[in-house]
């Protein structure tokens, strides 16, 4: 199917907005032609098309008339997945930092503390707004290492765009260096900076 939309006379960003809407109603293999009246709209539409993975070409048809032709690509599932990823990204709350300073939650019976911590990390995965970053230090380092019952949830959080970091000194101290199974290691300088820059720190 071919579709032509006329965006001549439209101010930025309307050509891109209209092209986005039109492309969402089309399928792979369809061709979308967007008519515009200025070079800047051509360049913005080219960026848009390339971002979506479409084949893009542009031609100048007259003094103030350009056509941007987009060959829609990818199976319909692909753009959908892309949407999904960007939704997940958006669900992270900017500047929210979760600090896990121990492998138990609260003081008291360690068995209870361990299961509370597991429940806490699990509950984190279920929040509408995920944290930006999770920082683990001291015995908190165990939570991101092999054998931890929090590991699966940590991996899930990481796959949803959350940055998971564990204190390198702590990994060394507890002999966990080879066992870190999710995210990266970090240093005190970075930990301090992240705490300073956080809009919100959650510490169970």
């Amino acid at each position, binding site marked *: 199917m071919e579709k032509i939309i006329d965006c001549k006379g439209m101010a930025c*960003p*309307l050509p*891109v*907005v209209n092209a986005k809407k039109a492309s969402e109603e089309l399928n792979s293999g369809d061709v979308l032609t967007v008519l515009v009246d200025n070079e800047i709209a051509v*360049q913005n539409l080219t*960026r*848009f*098309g390339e971002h979506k993975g479409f084949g893009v070409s542009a031609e100048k048809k007259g003094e103030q008339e350009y056509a941007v032709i987009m060959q829609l690509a990818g199976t319909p599932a692909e753009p959908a997945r892309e949407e999904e990823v960007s939704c997940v990204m958006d669900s992270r709350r*900017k500047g929210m930092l979760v600090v896990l300073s121990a492998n138990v939650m609260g003081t008291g019976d360690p068995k209870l503390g361990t299961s509370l911590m597991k429940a806490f990390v699990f509950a984190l995965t279920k929040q509408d707004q995920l944290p930006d970053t999770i920082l683990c230090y001291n015995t908190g380092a165990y939570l991101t290492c092999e054998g931890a019952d929090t590991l699966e949830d940590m991996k899930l959080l990481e796959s949803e765009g959350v940055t998971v970091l564990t204190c390198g000194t702590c990994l060394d101290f507890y002999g966990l260096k080879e066992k870190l199974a999710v995210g990266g290691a970090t240093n005190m300088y970075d930990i301090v900076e992240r705490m300073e820059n956080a809009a919100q720190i959650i510490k169970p």
Partner: protein
Amino acid sequence: METEVKLTKLASCAGCGAKMGAGTLAKMLEGFKAHSDPQLIVGYDKSDDASVYVLDENTALIQTTDFFPPIVDDPYLYGKIAATNALSDVYAMGGEPRLALNILCAAEGMEDSTIREILRGGYDAAYDAGAIITGGHTIKGAEPIYGLAVSGFAHPQRVLTNSNAKPGDVLILTKPLGIGIITTGAKADMVEKEVMDRIYAQMATLNKAARDIMVAYDVHSCTDVTGFALMGHSYEMAQGSNCTIHIQVDKVPYHPEALELASMGLVPAGAYRNRDYAQAGVSIRKGISLAMEDILYDPQTSGGLLFALPEAEAEACLAQLKQTIPNAAIIGYVTEKEDSDLVLE
């Protein structure tokens, strides 16, 4: 906040994106008759942020004006941002604003209460800056416009032009980039409210704190990053100083949302004009995504200060800035003139 008419829908350009390109402007002003005056130490020929006229050995008068169409629907915020942006040019010269005049164009369909809110925003910004609004001029027109004409003062020996960077200096930028792209994205309803609140708060923040810290150091050169973007303003600084400015792209602070929006094609026209203006003088030494380049060329409304100071003082200055301005960063350095005016690395 709800208003009768969405202010931004009355505007065809976003904020400083409405600014005429530097190249176009230079051509337009070519060949006019003008008096010369030795007391005028910074005039139009320097492409600086404001003019500077020496009144006596201790006092230099700094004058500037800036105004633009609405970039936000909340009239109070619009007024505050427009005034903050106008006041910034005085800070960029190392001075302190004292007197200001309103410049206002009210469009058909704007309620008196809306106009009053715009002005209230302007008065609040001026008050925080320690300046007095002494009057102004209001007309009716097709598009709303608001801004200020500002007068300020500095010691003539402490005026910071944009054309005095020295080899060995490093560059500090005090606000993250991406404002033009994100406000363009907002017009397409593609930006979360939370992000916009962050952007508006940044634009409504005076460069006063940055200026007050900066002047305690041996700063050689300063400008504010506005309509001509980081690239355009750095280009002017490099050319005026007869140096080459190296921008360390990985160190440049920006709002992360701008990267995605730029790659989606939500790049304001001003960014393309800035690219046309500066790119002949730019050499690129590493792989930079097109979207990141767009951010470097993105026109900023009420952007941060960009200043050059000796490397030996930079860390101390940055540490002091970071106490109140956490996003401030060292973003590059200055060398003797090389083949190009700007190097992205």
